[in-house]
C-alpha cells in the first residue's frame, strides 16, 4: 500500500542561474515553481550560491528570501540596530564561497569553480492549491567593491505530491 502511494510522488529540482546585475544595488529575483494539475509542491531544500565578479570571498553580499504567497520575509538579521543590511550574509548561506574561476558555455551558461561540495539547507514549505508558487530572492550588493557585480544560482529540491495527501502517512 505504501508503495502504491509512493509511486505517485516524484522529486523535482528547480534550478535558476541569475546573471550579473548592476553594481552596488539590491536585485530582486523571482523563483517560480511549476504548478502541476493534481499535485502540490513540497519544497524541502534550498541551495543558494552567490558569486561576486571579483571572486573575493570577503565580498559583503547579503541575501534574503521572501515568501510571496504569505507576504513574509524568510531571512532576517538579528541585529537591525547595528546596520541596515538586508538579510543574511551570503557567506553563511553560500555553498561554494571560494569560486575563483568560471567558464562561459556555448549557450551562455556560466560554469563555476567547484572545490567545495554544496550542502542544501532545509527549507520545508508546502505550496498547495491556494499558494502562489513563487519565492523572491533579494541580493544586497551595496557594499561590494566598485564595479563588482553579483551572479547567483538557486537550486530548490522538493516533491510533487498528490494534492490533499497526508505526507506523513506512507509517502516517503
Amino acid at each position, binding site marked *: 500500500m505504501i*508503495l*502504491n502511494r*509512493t*509511486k505517485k*510522488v*516524484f*522529486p*523535482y*529540482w*528547480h*534550478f*535558476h542561474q541569475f546573471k550579473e546585475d548592476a553594481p552596488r544595488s539590491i536585485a530582486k529575483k523571482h523563483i517560480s515553481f*511549476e504548478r502541476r494539475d493534481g499535485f502540490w509542491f513540497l519544497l*524541502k*531544500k534550498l*541551495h543558494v*550560491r552567490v558569486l561576486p565578479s571579483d571572486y573575493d570571498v570577503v565580498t559583503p553580499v547579503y541575501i534574503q528570501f521572501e515568501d510571496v504567497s504569505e507576504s513574509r520575509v524568510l531571512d532576517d538579521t538579528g541585529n537591525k540596530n547595528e546596520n541596515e543590511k538586508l538579510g543574511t550574509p551570503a557567506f553563511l548561506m553560500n*555553498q*561554494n564561497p571560494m569560486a575563483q*574561476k*568560471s*567558464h562561459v*558555455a*556555448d549557450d551562455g*551558461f556560466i*560554469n*563555476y*569553480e*567547484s*572545490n*567545495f*561540495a*554544496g*550542502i*542544501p539547507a532545509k527549507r520545508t514549505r508546502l505550496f498547495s492549491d491556494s499558494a502562489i508558487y513563487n519565492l523572491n530572492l533579494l541580493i544586497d550588493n551595496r557594499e561590494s567593491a566598485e564595479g563588482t557585480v553579483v551572479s547567483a*544560482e538557486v*537550486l530548490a*529540491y522538493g*516533491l510533487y505530491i498528490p494534492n490533499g495527501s497526508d505526507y506523513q502517512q506512507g509517502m*516517503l
Partner: protein
Amino acid sequence: MNENITEGIPLTRVAAVQKKQWKSYETIRATVLPKQEKTIKLLIDGAGDFLCEQITGSFETLALSGAETVDNGVCSMRVRFEDVGGNRKLTNDFVPLNHILTPGRRKSNKVTVKPDTSPYPNAIFLPLDFELLILNKSSLSITVKNDSDVAQDWEMTFWGTQFKGSAKS
C-alpha cells in the same frame, strides 16, 4: 514493527522484513564527449521496485589549455533527469553537477601537464535527498551535457531500498 525503543525490536521481525526489502544502491557512470550531451538509463530490473532515497556522485573538471588538458576545477557538466516509467521530467533545466553531487569534484588522471598542480577538491561525503520510486523494469533517464572542450567522466550512486515485488501490479 515495534516502536518502543525500551523493548527493542525483535530480530525475528527484522529478519522477516528483510526478506521483503533491503538497503541497496545502484551505480552508473559515463563519459561525455566535448560539447555534447549523452543520455543513459539506469534500468531497474531485478527483484522488484527500487525506492531511491539519496544520491552521491563525482565528476571531472577538465578543460583545454592550448594543446594540454588541465584540471581547472570548473564544473562544466550539467544534468537533467527524467523518470521514464512515470513519463515525468524531474528537473526544470540542466543542473550543474556541483549543485547536486557529493563528494563532487575529483582529481583526474587525464591531465597532460606534469606534474599535475591542480587544486585538491575539498570533498565531503554527504548523500543528498533524491526520493523516487523506480518501478521494476522501468528506468531513470540521465542526460549530462559537457560544456568543456575535453571528454569528461561522471558517476552517480543512487542509495535506497530494494523491494521484492512491485507496486506496478
